[in-house]
């Protein structure tokens, strides 16, 4: 096996990563899946390291996933929630982060609605920055966990199809789903004003929701993915969400392994020479 070295100081998005970086993260994550299946789900790899979850937007599952990932690596973790923080008192993002940094954390996981805010942090912060979703821009650990779920899913899918990164846009669900290996539904994000983009939930459901009948058009061993939280009977029919083809809950489990891999590989040291 080829020995790889991960040389990133931060995880801001997938676009900055090389194929090698992505493969390193996924291989490391695969090794971490085993840790979560043990009775004692803890390894001492990040003992003495501090991880800060800095969430300016509610995202309970992403925050919990990072929290569990950090704890399974024996890191100390604090949750910094914007709704109860000094931001309410008028502190700027920069001052908030500088204050946190004065407490010498190693890794800051940030969720912020403004695209590019994690990148902005790297211009002055000394900790490793992990983007846990920056608005309309990226959510790299979600992309990685999706990739991991697909990779360890049915063997028929493994990378060949993914190497041709060309995607086709289709507005016809039947045509789109036909012979697909992976059907990935996304949530209608009401909080980002999604409902302004179509006339009514009812119409959306009728045209786009994934039903048993629709999914039957996909390839025989296709999997159904969804990042959660799911809106039952909006984008996904209840019977499909609970079906055997659904890997939605597996995505949650894999999410922890991916975040463990990211925290482990970053380690929280910014290498001056690489900046």
């Amino acid at each position, binding site marked *: *096996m080829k*020995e*790889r*070295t*991960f*040389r990133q100081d931060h995880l801001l998005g997938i676009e900055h990563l090389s194929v090698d970086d992505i493969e*390193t993260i996924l*291989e*490391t994550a*695969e*090794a*971490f899946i*085993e*840790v979560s299946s*043990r*009775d*004692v789900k*803890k*390894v*001492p*790899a990040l003992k*003495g390291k501090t991880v800060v979850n800095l969430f300016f937007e509610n995202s309970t599952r992403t925050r919990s996933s990072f929290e569990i990932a950090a704890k399974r*690596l024996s890191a100390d973790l604090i949750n910094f929630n914007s709704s109860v923080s000094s931001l309410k008192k008028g502190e700027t993002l920069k001052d908030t982060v500088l204050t946190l940094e004065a407490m010498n954390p190693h890794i800051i996981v940030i969720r912020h609605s403004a695209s590019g805010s994690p990148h902005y942090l790297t211009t002055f912060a000394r900790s490793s920055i992990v983007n846990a979703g920056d608005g309309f821009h990226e959510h790299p650990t979600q992309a990685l966990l999706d990739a991991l779920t697909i990779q360890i899913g049915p063997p028929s899918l493994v990378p060949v199809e993914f190497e041709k990164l060309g995607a086709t846009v289709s507005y016809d669900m039947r045509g789109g789903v036909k012979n697909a290996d992976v059907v990935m539904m996304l949530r209608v994000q009401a909080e980002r004003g999604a409902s302004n983009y179509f006339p009514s939930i009812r119409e959306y459901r009728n045209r786009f929701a994934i039903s048993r009948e629709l999914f039957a058009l996909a390839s025989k061993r296709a999997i159904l993915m969804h990042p959660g939280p799911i809106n039952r009977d909006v984008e996904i029919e209840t019977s499909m969400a609970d079906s055997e083809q659904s890997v939605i809950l597996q995505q949650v489990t894999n999410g922890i392994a991916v975040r463990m*891999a990211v925290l*482990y*590989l970053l*380690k929280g040291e910014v*290498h001056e020479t690489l900046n």
Partner: protein
Amino acid sequence: MEEKIKAKIMDDKKMKRALQRLAIEILEHNREAEKLALIGIQTRGVHIARRIQGLVKELEGVDIPLGILDITMFRDDLHMHEHQPAVKKTRIDFPIEDRDIVLIDDVVFTGRTIRAAMDSIFELGRPATLQLAAFIDRGHRELPICPDFKGKYLPTSRRERVKVMLQEIDGKDQVLIMEPKGF
């Protein structure tokens, strides 16, 4: 660091003999073969364990379970590396509770790998006994660890490196002592 071969210590015949002796010693020491299990430490320890497993099957006709252990997460020097070492897979598919476990590695040196392996195993359960088989014991222990079974004791100097080469990985069975170039 560039290295050169200082000496060839074992060829495939000698290695085969040493492995056979290890398998016999492990069986002699563990009367209840059905309680026995092997755990190989990634990467070369796993292949050595697999061979011992095969030899035990040949000798006694028993199948003893084999686990794979990666100790990266339990290393005590993680903070000393500039980049994190690669994590490999751990796969132990049998309960280790109340079993006689033989840990297997290619070379025992400072003892720190074995310390990490012991920590890792005790997170998984409480074996009845934990024993250590090292194919090569090269001395220079920094911890109170001593193999129960060894293929060969090989006194070395610290600047040397013992290279156990295996058919499965290196395409050839041999043991070499390497030393830095220029010495």
